[in-house]
């Protein structure tokens, strides 16, 4: 028997990272009666929040700062297509959430007087980023996870791979998950579902993202009829290690690091003269690519790179503020940043787009909520500012949890179980789609590599109509070839070949939505830069791209971005 008896909770939460755990705690605190199933394909402390390094932004210190300033920085950073009402709500809640984390034990770095310390991040006009050395995400995730252990009503389902949402009568009723240990399909029913599964950086070959970031939640919602928003906006982080794509945090520039080209110039003076190294990520990534194309970058075995120089900061400061950068550079490229500059190049980092949600985390599907990188509220628009995402996980995670709890209290999606046939059908689909043995079938690794390659070529830092079109066509072919995959592993217990196949299936959907969005947005804005359509087109594209899934590929609609107090202006730094 491949199915097991279902379990029932009030809220089913998919994903155990920063947003997910925050949502779970918010939900059980909002209502003393309800239980939350926290379902994750990994143990929660393995979630990718753990890799975030630099910090989390919020106006905790009001000297020289204000909500309006944080809001404006964020909106300008977004190239003016974030929803300004959402941004305002976000910045107002941010300090509370950061302090809440402090009260839960997060070891924020401190000033000598005992207050939390702050640093200035790219695109932020004042030091408002809290940090825990350069392991902020790690400390936040572990503080959240360890805090969650005290709530008995948060019931963890670790290493359960969610394959689909259970939707019945127009509302979400739960999820189906493969229990990796037994290999059986477990239906988990609930009266609301929150998705916090993070982004989809793995559709690209060269990314800071962990292997688990395969866009599962986005794809599941997308398949359940929920639109994806602004998927064409994918952020390249300017400073990743060549070869591995390991993230060298923006904090290294916040602490005073410089970028140099081959000729020894701090080349950013030609691109973002007022902010220099603390310019926003999209502009810095583009600047580096331009240097490469102009032949002013170094040539290495993993391609071109420029230098991130920290040597002038001194050993003491590096050890105190950037110990992880030192550890990573020493270990993975054999360079001690105290003595030598670090080779870096832009690397795929973050999906601005995601599941279409409102400020409360609610999606158009009744009972379905989403928060964190998987969601698009949107506060990040066309380009996210560094250190807004960890805060976003907290603020919108908490709101999604709270509102899901409220929804459940008001009755929620009908609690009578959805028909059993849904889970049975899901298992049949899994067997049909992934476990069939095709003669000379395709290896999933081959398709995955070709997909990643197509995305890098078509949807990189710079794009143009032809390359995007080529990528899209390639993805459609890959989609077809995917129908003939043949996986090696047909065992039940911990079948990672099967889960990798499902992840690839998810990623193909996501990649196609990204490419389609990129193709149709004939302008350049934030992280989406088209060589064939230079410059912003506010008349036509001050809008969100809304992608609906159809059998023939994504169907796009456009929705105006919410502008309240800040009119779009030219984005100069």
């Amino acid at each position, binding site marked *: 028997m491949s199915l097991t008896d279902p379990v029932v909770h009030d809220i089913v939460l998919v994903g155990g990272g920063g947003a997910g755990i925050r949502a779970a705690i918010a939900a059980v605190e909002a209502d003393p009666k309800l239980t939350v199933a926290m379902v994750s394909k990994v143990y929660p402390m393995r979630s990718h929040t753990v890799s975030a390094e630099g910090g989390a932004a919020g106006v905790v210190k009001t000297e020289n700062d204000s909500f309006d300033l944080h809001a404006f920085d964020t909106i300008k950073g977004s190239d003016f297509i974030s929803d300004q009402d959402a941004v305002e709500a976000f910045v107002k809640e941010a300090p509370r959430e950061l302090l809440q984390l402090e009260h839960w*034990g997060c070891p924020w770095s401190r000033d000598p007087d005992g207050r939390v310390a702050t640093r200035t991040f790219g695109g932020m006009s004042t030091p408002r980023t809290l940090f825990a050395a350069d392991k902020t995400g790690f400390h936040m995730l572990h503080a959240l996870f360890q805090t969650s252990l005290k709530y008995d009503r948060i019931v963890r389902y670790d290493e359960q791979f969610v394959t689909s949402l259970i939707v019945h009568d127009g509302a979400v009723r739960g999820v189906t998950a493969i229990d990796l240990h037994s290999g059986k399909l477990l239906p988990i029913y609930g009266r609301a579902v929150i998705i916090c599964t993070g982004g989809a950086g793995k559709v690209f070959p060269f990314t800071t993202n962990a292997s688990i970031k395969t866009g599962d939640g986005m794809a599941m919602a997308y398949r359940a009829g929920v639109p994806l928003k602004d998927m064409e906006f994918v952020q390249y982080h300017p400073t990743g290690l060549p070869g591995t794509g390991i993230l060298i945090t923006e904090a290294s520039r916040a602490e005073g690091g410089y970028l140099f080209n081959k000729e020894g110039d701090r080349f950013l003076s030609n691109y973002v003269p007022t902010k220099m190294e603390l310019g926003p990520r999209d502009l810095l990534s583009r600047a580096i690519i331009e240097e490469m194309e102009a032949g002013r970058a170094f040539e290495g075995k993993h391609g071109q790179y420029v230098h991130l120089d920290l040597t002038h900061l001194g050993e003491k400061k590096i050890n105190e503020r950037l110990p992880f950068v030192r550890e990573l550079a020493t270990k993975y490229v054999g360079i001690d940043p105290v003595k030598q500059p670090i080779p870096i190049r832009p690397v795929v980092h973050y999906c601005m787009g995601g599941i279409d949600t409102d400020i409360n985390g609610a999606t158009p599907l009744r009972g379905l909520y989403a928060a964190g990188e998987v969601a698009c509220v949107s506060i990040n628009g066309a380009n996210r500012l560094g250190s807004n995402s960890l805060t976003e996980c907290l603020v919108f995670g908490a709101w999604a949890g709270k509102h899901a709890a409220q929804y459940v209290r008001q009755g929620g999606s009908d609690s009578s179980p959805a028909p059993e046939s849904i889970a049975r059908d899901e298992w049949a689909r899994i067997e049909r789609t992934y476990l069939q043995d095709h003669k000379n079938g395709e290896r999933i690794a081959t398709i995955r590599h070709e997909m990643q390659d197509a995305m890098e070529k078509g949807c990189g830092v710079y794009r143009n109509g032809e390359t995007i079109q080529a990528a899209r066509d390639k993805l459609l072919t890959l989609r077809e070839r995917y129908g003939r995959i043949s996986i090696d592993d047909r065992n039940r217990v911990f079948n990672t070949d099967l889960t990798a196949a499902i992840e690839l299936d998810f990623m193909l959907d996501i990649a196609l939505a990204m490419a389609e969005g990129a193709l149709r947005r004939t302008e350049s804005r934030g992280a989406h830069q088209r060589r064939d359509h230079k410059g912003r087109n506010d008349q036509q594209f001050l809008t969100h791209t809304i992608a609906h899934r159809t059998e023939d590929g994504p169907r796009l609609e456009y929705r105006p971005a919410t502008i309240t107090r800040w009119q779009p202006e030219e984005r100069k730094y």
Partner: protein
Amino acid sequence: MSDKMKKLTVTRYNPETDSAPRTQTYEVPYDDDTVVLDALNHIKDQQDGTLTYRWSCRMGVCGSCGMNVNGVPKLTCATFLRDFEGDITVEPLANFPIMRDLVVNMSDFMEKLKRVKPWLIPKEEKSIDEGEYLQTPRQLEAYRQFSMCINCMLCYAACPVYGKHQDFLGPAAIALGHRYNEDSRDGARAERNKIIGSGEGVWECTFVGECSEVCPKHVDPAAAIQREKLANVLDKIKSFILPRGSSR
């Protein structure tokens, strides 16, 4: 990758067909940048999709990819093939039940972690509106090292005490308890001591010290355990001399 080739002998165990683990040897290309995890990924992608292991961040912080490499517990994403002469043996982390191939069952640790109450129990409650609890850099430094644990389980794999006595709370769990005990904001040492100072806690440790040797994040759980022993004894002496009002 270059043409250099390396032999990896990997533990295989499929509970559906095997009664005990066996080994299988693969050959992989490598260069100076190749880590053991890359080699496993190469095998899984190109040679044998049934090979099973955990991994995620590939930058030494998520804690998923711990395995015994040539008998030593290692994060495989930070263990380079270039550092080994000859063939390499990759086994699941020692001292844990093997679920499949290189995947171990760590639910025992998850249970134990919860028992040491690894969350902040403030000395005095403060509402969020009152702002943060003040903590000087020096007070932060007192526990910072012990907050660096990534739960990778390497210390458990290195600990002979845990190998023999599975009821032992173990290095990481105690170190995390110690982390909160040493936090200037926390006031629940006595409460945690009920488990940390119990027979399954620090007193089972004979201070072999290997946990600290293999720790990839320099947490030094051995130090945490010995300090908890000392604190426990000092507390007992204090409460013996001053029977009442000796919470710390």
